[in-house]
């Protein structure tokens, strides 16, 4: 290929497809490269899609995208070995005309998104690994090198939407290798059931869905979280921990997933299902402090490659799309002004990102990763204490309620100490602020 593109986008996940779509729609010549057999072939997500980010790019997506169920109920469960204590929130208001979140299946969603990219006029090539960035004598990125024959391709700018591992950004020196203490590994399975069974079991209507977030003793004091999401005719279930925690031993990713599936509160939800896929993926969880420089001479990082994930709220795909869109808009504006995608000019992308919810939210929760590292007991102690408290209060065994209350308070104090409890509350509140 001797043609020079306005932009090359590496990766066909939500970040890459958002960037490629927005630029192609504005009439720029765009090449999108994906290493998978098809977009989504390498990608794993829970997956909850937040409407807002996509709606700003493709307003009519609800009529076209492969959406599973809109979420009407969220459950947060704290698990101990034998019990769970939970908080449910369900509202008919989630049955609005334009629901704000859906469960999706990434392999299908990514394929759809990429058909939109093609329809907007971009050239999309799958089955192709980008091996390195091409630079000129001044170190400016001028294109990419692929694993195809004669695979050097030139462009005015290269947008790296190559996901959490981003070996390209690492090899180019734009980003350090991922750190196991700031990166989670999640193992996931897809369990198939008839739609009526799912609807009965989860107490939901035909298109309605439920999302569970799970924490507890399962992760044996390691920083970890699980999830269960209902799709049209399947259930996504997964659980993960920090890589650095797995490294210490005592847990395997598949062992942890099997324990979750066997938990007495979870097992009946999956009964009779057929498991059709097992997957695993990393999540960048370093938060605001771990975000690398996101632009330079002829290049930008978007989505997971820039570490844009809010792990507290399990938001990543939305930040990926928004960052992709903002990067694209920067390129479009520079093209209009006849300016090059130099370091100085691409600084606009950073400002736009800073002004958006992406960086604002990441800043808001910047204390969270640190808090969790220093306070691993929140994953074991609290679920246990809460469950004990509930059990004590709910059991009818001849003990009066006042004495029961005293027992509960005593257990909390003994296990953590009053200062510990207050301290945790303050630290937790700070991390959330």
């Amino acid at each position, binding site marked *: 290929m001797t043609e020079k593109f306005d932009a090359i986008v590496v990766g066909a996940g939500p970040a890459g497809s958002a960037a490629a779509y927005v630029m192609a729609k504005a009439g720029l010549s765009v090449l999108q490269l994906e290493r998978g057999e098809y977009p989504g072939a390498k990608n794993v997500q829970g997956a909850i899609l937040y409407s807002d980010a996509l709606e700003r790019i493709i307003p009519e997506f609800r009529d076209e995208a492969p959406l599973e169920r809109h979420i009407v109920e969220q459950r947060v469960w704290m698990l101990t070995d034998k019990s769970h204590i939970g908080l449910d929130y369900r509202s008919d208001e989630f049955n609005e005309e334009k629901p704000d979140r859906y469960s999706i299946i990434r392999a299908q969603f990514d394929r759809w998104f990429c058909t939109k990219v093609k329809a907007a006029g971009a050239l999309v090539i799958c089955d192709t690994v980008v091996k390195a960035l091409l630079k000129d004598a001044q170190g400016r990125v001028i294109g990419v090198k692929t694993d195809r024959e004669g695979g050097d391709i030139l462009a005015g700018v290269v947008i790296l939407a190559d996901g959490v591992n981003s070996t390209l950004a690492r090899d180019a020196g734009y980003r350090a290798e991922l750190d196991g203490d700031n990166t989670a590994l999640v193992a996931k399975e897809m369990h198939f059931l008839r739609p009526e069974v799912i609807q009965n079991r989860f107490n939901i209507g035909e298109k309605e869905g439920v999302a569970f977030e799970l924490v507890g003793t399962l992760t044996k004091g390691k920083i970890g979280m699980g999830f269960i999401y209902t799709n049209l005719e399947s259930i996504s279930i997964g659980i993960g921990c920090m*890589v650095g925690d797995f490294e210490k031993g005592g847990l395997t990713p*598949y062992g942890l997933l099997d324990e979750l599936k066997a938990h007495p509160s979870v097992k009946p939800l999956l009964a009779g299902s057929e498991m059709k896929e097992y997957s695993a993926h990393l999540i960048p969880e370093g938060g605001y402090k771990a975000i690398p420089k996101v632009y330079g001479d002829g290049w930008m990082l978007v989505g997971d490659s820039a570490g844009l994930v809010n792990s507290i709220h399990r938001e990543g795909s939305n930040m990926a799309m928004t960052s992709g869109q903002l990067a694209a808009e920067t390129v479009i504006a520079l093209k209009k002004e006849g300016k090059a995608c130099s370091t100085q000019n691409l600084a606009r992308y950073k400002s736009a990102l800073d002004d958006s919810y992406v960086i604002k939210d990441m800043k808001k929760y910047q204390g969270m990763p640190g808090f969790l590292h220093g306070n691993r007991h929140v994953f074991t102690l609290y679920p246990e204490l809460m469950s004990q408290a509930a059990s004590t209060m709910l059991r009818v065994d001849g003990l009066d309620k006042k004495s029961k209350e005293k027992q509960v308070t005593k257990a909390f104090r003994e296990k953590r100490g009053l200062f510990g409890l207050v301290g945790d509350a303050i630290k937790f509140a700070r991390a959330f602020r």
Partner: protein
Amino acid sequence: MSKVEEKLFQNRYLLDEGSPHIRIKNPAVCKTSCAQPCTFCCPAACYVKNEEGGVDLTTDGCLECGTCRLICQSNGNLEWDYPRGGFGISFKFG
């Protein structure tokens, strides 16, 4: 079949026979100076302890997550790459 193998059996792979995308640089390092975390961290159990006290790597079931690359950082004993374009795991759902 082990539990992990049963799981992986459900997946769709296009194998690039004879050209594994991850390689152990120096097997002696695995044997002598490593706690071998890859043998319990890899979600596809691609790394297995062998009888000589070292580690055998078979990438056929690899989910291309990147975990082994992270945990072997301190030893720098892995050559980690993606499979050739189109090869490796192809998630139907993801």
